[in-house]
């Protein structure tokens, strides 16, 4: 190895692997709560996605004649795989996981030039492709274990994910699934006429968000605070996103509380929290300067609300992130930081 030709000659000890490991570590609480609340299915899909992702990345690196080890070991595929699976229903069929991961790694990441060059968040790109291609599979969310007479175990989960035993598992899955709180809210408000009635219409709602789900959201928040504390992420994007979403929700809730659920419901349902701390903060596809990050985060927050409330899908995190990804070059262009000594 050659010597460093130019200063600094001190080593800060920072590495990509270190950053990615911190992110994965920050997801551990969420995984634990997830398994506790929804069963072990998520572990199976995550492992499947990670293996698929690594294999796809290796293949693509070979094809693109890039060195394997530095890129395979940087941990970025593992983060993408984890985020994608956390966005999917936990008992989704194996081929859905594989297709989503392949799209994320091969198309959204490698074909755009690999790590550092992808304009779109790979996990969200993979998720959106799945959502558009296989809407049915992606809406079969399992009910929280607490609402099931017979909690789902490891073997059941394996059977259902890998489709062992013919149609029986699928039927069984139907019995286990339930509309998500956001879905339920969206469908029931027009039918029943008020947020109150919608909330009463299903046991899926919890104290602030979804039954069980709100605990997972709490774990995301915890992991996010850990990342902030370790300075893996800056506060700008998560805070702007949550404030953007919260303000929109608060505004409409104030205007008509019967038709628009309160801000806490929005913040603690769906993918808002994981989006704020883990997805929108993906540095590669986010805005660069701190001012830009505020705009980027707030834009995602507002867009999530618009899609949830008036769009065609119950949740909007993935679309919001991808849309704002497209605006990043524009945001970056108009938000250079004020250089020392220059007037603003």
């Amino acid at each position, binding site marked *: 190895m050659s010597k*460093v030709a*130019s*200063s600094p*000659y001190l080593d800060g000890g920072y590495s990509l692997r270190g950053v990615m490991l911190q992110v994965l570590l920050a997801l551990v609480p969420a995984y634990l709560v997830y398994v506790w609340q929804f069963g072990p299915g998520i572990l199976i899909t995550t492992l499947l996605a990670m293996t698929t992702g690594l294999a796809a990345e290796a293949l693509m690196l070979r094809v693109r004649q*890039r060195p394997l080890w*530095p890129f395979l070991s940087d941990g970025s595929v593992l983060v993408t795989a984890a985020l994608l699976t956390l966005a999917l229903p936990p008992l989704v069929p194996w081929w859905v996981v594989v297709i989503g991961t392949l799209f994320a790694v091969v198309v959204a990441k490698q074909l755009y030039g690999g790590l550092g060059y992808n304009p779109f968040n790979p996990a969200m790109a993979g998720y959106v492709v799945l959502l558009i291609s296989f809407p049915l599979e992606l809406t079969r969310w399992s009910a929280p274990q607490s609402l099931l007479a017979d909690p789902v175990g490891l073997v059941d989960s394996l059977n259902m994910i890998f489709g062992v035993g013919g149609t029986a598992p699928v039927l069984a899955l139907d019995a286990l699934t339930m509309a998500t709180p956001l879905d339920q809210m969206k469908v029931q408000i027009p039918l029943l006429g008020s947020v109150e009635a919608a909330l009463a219409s299903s046991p899926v709602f919890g104290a602030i968000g979804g039954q069980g789900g709100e605990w997972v959201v709490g774990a995301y928040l915890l992991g996010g605070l850990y990342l902030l504390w370790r300075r893996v992420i800056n506060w700008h994007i998560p805070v702007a996103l949550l404030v953007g979403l919260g303000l929109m929700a608060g505004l409409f809730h104030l205007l008509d509380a019967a038709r628009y659920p309160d801000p806490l419901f929005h913040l603690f349902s769906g993918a808002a929290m994981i989006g704020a701390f883990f997805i929108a903060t993906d540095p*590669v596809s986010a805005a*660069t300067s701190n001012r830009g990050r505020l705009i980027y985060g707030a834009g995602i927050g507002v867009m999530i609300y618009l899609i949830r409330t008036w769009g065609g899908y119950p949740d909007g995190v993935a679309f919001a992130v991808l849309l704002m990804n497209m605006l990043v070059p524009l945001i970056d262009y108009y938000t250079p930081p004020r*250089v020392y000594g220059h007037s603003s």
Partner: protein
Amino acid sequence: MSLLHEQDFHGGLRGLPEHKELSTGQPIGELFMPSRLVLPLCQGVGAEAEPVVTVGERVLKGQLLAQAKGSLSTALHAPTSGQVSAIEPRLVPHPSGLPARCIELVPDGEDRWGELPRLADPLSSPPEVIQAVIVAAGLAGLGGAGFPTAVKLGVQGRPVKTLLINAAECEPYITCDDMLMRERAAAIAEGIQILRHLLAAGQVVVATEDNKPEAAAAMSRALAGLPECEILSFPTAYPSGGEKQLIELALGKQVPYGGLPLDIGVVCLNVGTVYAVRQAVMAGEPLISRIVTVTGDGANSPGNYEVLIGTPVNELVAHAGGATDGVERCIMGGPMMGFMLPNDRVPVIKTTNCVLLMQTEVPAVQQPTMPCIRCGACADVCPASLLPQQLYWYARAENSEKLEHYQLFDCIECGCCSYVCPSRIPLVQYYRAAKGEIVEQQAARAAADIARQRTEFRAARLAAEKQQRAERVAKKKAALKEQGSNPEADAKKAKIAEAMKRVGKLEAPSAESADEQP
């Protein structure tokens, strides 16, 4: 009430491993006589000084060897008595590793002083007289790039509100200013009084970091009783000793873009320079020696030494107890902004604050460079509030327009960005190379302009020969084309020349890189 606003500068690094205690254990080592002295005619920025001695000539200690030529150059004096043995290009301590013209002096061992023009009572001497002494003494900033002190002090009647003494010494390992303050605080205080008198400065602020309590205590004893004079001690943060950062820290103001500290009523001098001013004015000694820290895990006996300018680094290291086996690198300056020496026979110059001998290999080089993930860690720590990741992108694309748009030339090359980059990108290396390239392009353009002018002259002359009657007219034309001196253009040229000196001819980095994106 204090006029000072304590506030932070953007970015920077806190908690760097400092290793300062390595070299503060023993008092400053006394002067020693090397076997020869090599004095580069350029001691930092500016043009080479013009030799006024010839090979073979005998000189006395303190005698003028070369006089300043051009506005940014400084005079050079004999560090001891002896004989001039050569005036020729030698390897000099410069990142480019290129040779430059030097005067070599072989000491005669007598160390005999010439006549010393000291000022009996500087505080009642007119400022012009003091300024003339400083010009003659060849003083250059001892903390950084070696900017001529006389230029900084040439305020030409503009009001100076604050004389800011930079005693931050923020780079790890370096302790020469620390030790200077501990041992020679009284002389520094005299220097401060001379400078305040010279500048008619209202207020004096000595700014240091809180990792130098002994030095701060010594300074406050020495400065006790001086009116409007304060010592500020800031939390240790790199690069608080950058001039612009220190001004922001101490005074809460930013130097406007393209301007000078004087534009906001500030003159900022390194504490070592203040000491040199005192020596020049009160003892009549030109700048012929300085304190150098010899340290690092490769130094047998780390410490500070009074060293004659021109002393070869290998003789200094030998005098300082020698280097351990297996020293990997010899760095001049600190680990953040210093540069690796091409070999250890290059001399100590006026700006040499530290010789750092490093044994351990930086782990960073064992890991390949990865692509930028735009994490912004570099921007968070950049004290100039730049976007290092964008600069990196455009440096690789060799897009000089964009580089200037993103203010490449505001980069102070502090190295904070490289230090935190998780992708291990040697960012500063790219910036140095890019700056060098842009400066070279501009120089080439300037050269082309001159060539074009010459051609035009020639055409005019030929025309004149043909048509004698039109001779006068043609001459007039040519004379008109010869541009009169344009202060703005001159200032720009000086800036370019300065940048050129600094960047040298660094090649673009060719580190083994995993990131080979076309």
